[in-house]
């Protein structure tokens, strides 16, 4: 890395810069989705790109998730590198047939012939009081599916760098952007670019307990780690980054050091990604555990509208710290 200029930016701008870079570098790349063009994107991620790249490459689609996600799959299969934006993860269920039955299976059922180099971006998560049909964290569901890769950029660096790497992947990649992150501010080197998407990242090193999380709850988890530090509990925080495949090595390496784990996952607890991570720790690091694995997950309720109830349904720093104290004993 060169000593590049450091610039102020936001998660939204970093994501936009990533799309712009991809469009500039590769003619096969185009963006399509609901209101990505003239409206500028539901979350303003693609604001200005229509003017820059034109309506052939920044394509507004009708409200027909199955058709345009499937069209993205078909175009990818036929040699393009589409970026498909789905407004929220709840809407992605209308395209689940295409994602599960086509994107994830074509390579295998064609005996290796049909690769699908497609990137699907979508917003996930709660925190904005948009109630029970716009707030859920369903990325854990998608991690159930072999054949796709699932990413969750939680930092500016990853918002800026994951897209290009995902577009280089010959297989379909889903990128989940937590809605609460778009306004995240910070700095990045002006020449920030592609990042690795295979490894988890240790966002804070520690020796007493491992806190494992991803996406929207990374900030909350780091806050909890600071609170724990004040009490003399030195927590390590792992940002999974890639939810499928999971980076088992980083997880078990940390457990071997700390012997205690709290998994923080905004998704519902039952059948969650947190459950999968917990099971893997049991399978691969059982003899390193000095306390039961703790989970802090979203409450099992369709997301209610009022702020106090929504907050009560989400993993909070105090609950994470309490779980950590419980594990450390």
């Amino acid at each position: 890395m060169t000593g590049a200029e450091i610039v102020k930016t936001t998660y939204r701008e970093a994501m936009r810069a990533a799309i712009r870079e991809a469009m500039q570098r590769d003619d096969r790349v185009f963006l399509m989705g609901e209101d990505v063009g003239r409206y500028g994107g539901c979350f303003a991620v693609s604001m200005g790109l229509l003017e820059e790249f034109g309506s052939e490459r920044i394509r507004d689609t009708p409200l027909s998730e199955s058709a345009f996600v499937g069209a993205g799959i078909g175009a990818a299969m036929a040699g393009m590198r589409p970026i498909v934006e789905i407004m929220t993860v709840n809407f992605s269920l209308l395209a689940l047939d295409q994602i599960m039955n086509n994107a994830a299976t074509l390579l295998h059922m064609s005996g290796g012939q049909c690769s699908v180099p497609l990137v699907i971006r979508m917003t996930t998560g709660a925190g904005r009081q948009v109630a029970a049909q716009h707030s859920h964290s369903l990325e854990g569901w998608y991690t159930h599916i072999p054949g796709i890769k699932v990413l969750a950029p939680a930092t500016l660096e990853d918002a800026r760098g994951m897209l290009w790497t995902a577009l280089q992947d010959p297989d379909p990649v889903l990128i989940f952007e937590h809605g609460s992150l778009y306004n995240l501010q910070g700095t990045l080197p002006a020449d920030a670019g592609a990042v690795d998407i295979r490894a988890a990242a240790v966002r804070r090193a520690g020796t007493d307990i491992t806190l494992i999380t991803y996406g929207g709850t990374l900030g909350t988890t780091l806050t909890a780690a600071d609170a724990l530090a004040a009490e003399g509990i030195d927590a390590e925080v792992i940002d999974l980054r890639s939810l499928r495949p999971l980076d088992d090595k980083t997880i078990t390496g940390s457990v071997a050091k700390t012997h205690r784990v709290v998994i923080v996952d905004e998704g519902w607890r039952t059948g969650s990604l947190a459950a999968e991570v917990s099971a893997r720790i049991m399978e691969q690091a059982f003899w390193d555990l000095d306390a039961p694995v703790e989970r802090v997950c979203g409450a099992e309720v369709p997301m209610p509208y009022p702020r106090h109830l929504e907050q009560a349904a989400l993993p909070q720093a105090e609950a994470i710290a309490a779980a950590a104290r419980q594990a450390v004993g």
Partner: protein
Amino acid sequence: MAEFCMPVLGADMDEGTVVEWLVKPGDEVHKGDVIAVIDTAKSAIEVESFSAGTVDQLVVGVGQTVPVGTVLAIIAAPGGERAEPVIAAAKKERRPRPAARAEQPAPPAPAPRPVTPVLRHRAHELGIDLATVHGTGAAGAITRADVEHAAAELHPAAAPSPTVAGQKRPRSRPRPGGLRVTPLARRIAHELGVDLAEVTGTGPEGAIREADVRLAQTASKPAAAEVAAAPAARSAADRTQSMRQAIARLMARSKREIPHYYVSNTADMTRAMSWLHNRNRELEVSQRLVPAAMLLKATALAARQVPQLNGYWTDDAFRPADAVHLGVAISLRGGGLLTPAIHDAADLELAELMAKMRDLVTRARGGRLRGSELTDATITVTNLGDQGVESVYGVIYPPQVALVGIGRVIERPVAVGGLVGARPVVVTTLAADHRATDGYTGARYLTALSDLLQRPEEL
């Protein structure tokens, strides 16, 4: 001749029933003619012949249920030719499976009786072959009582007590009554040969955790064989005795394996004590610093400056540690010694260091140290100053390579610039492993330590 076999009529069909024959022996059939109606689990379906010829024989009668692939009828080729279709030829190769099933409608082997996984496990524990157990439950099902009964017959003396299988169990297996042990603690206990029955758990609801095992190991005999030889509960005096033996072994090994060399230095403490005095005037009594804190911090910082003394001698080579974890020798009230580590001691503020030190002493004496604290030290210091001695030459803790000794801060006549005056001094010593370093390095270390004490504001 061609065979007309029970066809596969769907992805989930294993067997079918002949509902009706639409032909009889002597009838002529064409390829594609419907010749029978077959009932599958789902529905009755008309099935066709893939051969042409004359029906020679109907092998399976109406109402019979047979597996797919079973021959239903023989069709003689027209004009007596043996026009065996490609399909039939291939089918024969794979027929053994369905044929075998057809031949054994009721297998003579003992019908498997339902056994729950729990019972299966119990039988395994007791060493009972379930095939030999007579089931008294519904439909001949084996009940728990049957298994226990069989065990009693097999081991009349012990059964049905669970101790029958006791010999096979790992020693750390929880006994009925419930010994709560974390997986890590269980593993460490196994590795160190610690009997979990002898360990006091400090975790939730008395769970035994790693630190408990390590403490027990340090406080008792480390060798598994000896633990096994003395399984009875031990008194406090026994524990003290065990610890004494552990120390004896470790120190003897040190003196046997490590070629020690020694250096010493008398450090002027005038500036340090004066700085400490001034500093303490600003602090509340409870927060006042003691000289030991300064000495420990300087010891740790010097170890960072001379990294050749901070680390381990393993596999015939010195491996420097990447952090300074300062082992502190703490004597226990009932006798014995522990050397827990202050992690990253060189990076701690004096107040923090002092707090950690106090905490360690309290917990060491209360038996509540964490495992990592007992194993992580990279260099150890022994401070017998508060016991009044002026200098101490220690024995290195393997696999560490250095042990720093600190005596009492004491006023002594010292000549400075030709004038003799009373000044506070402390004697620092170093015992070091000659395999890892030479006296030159040891001298550099003590000089560095002394220099640090001349700049107390930087500690």
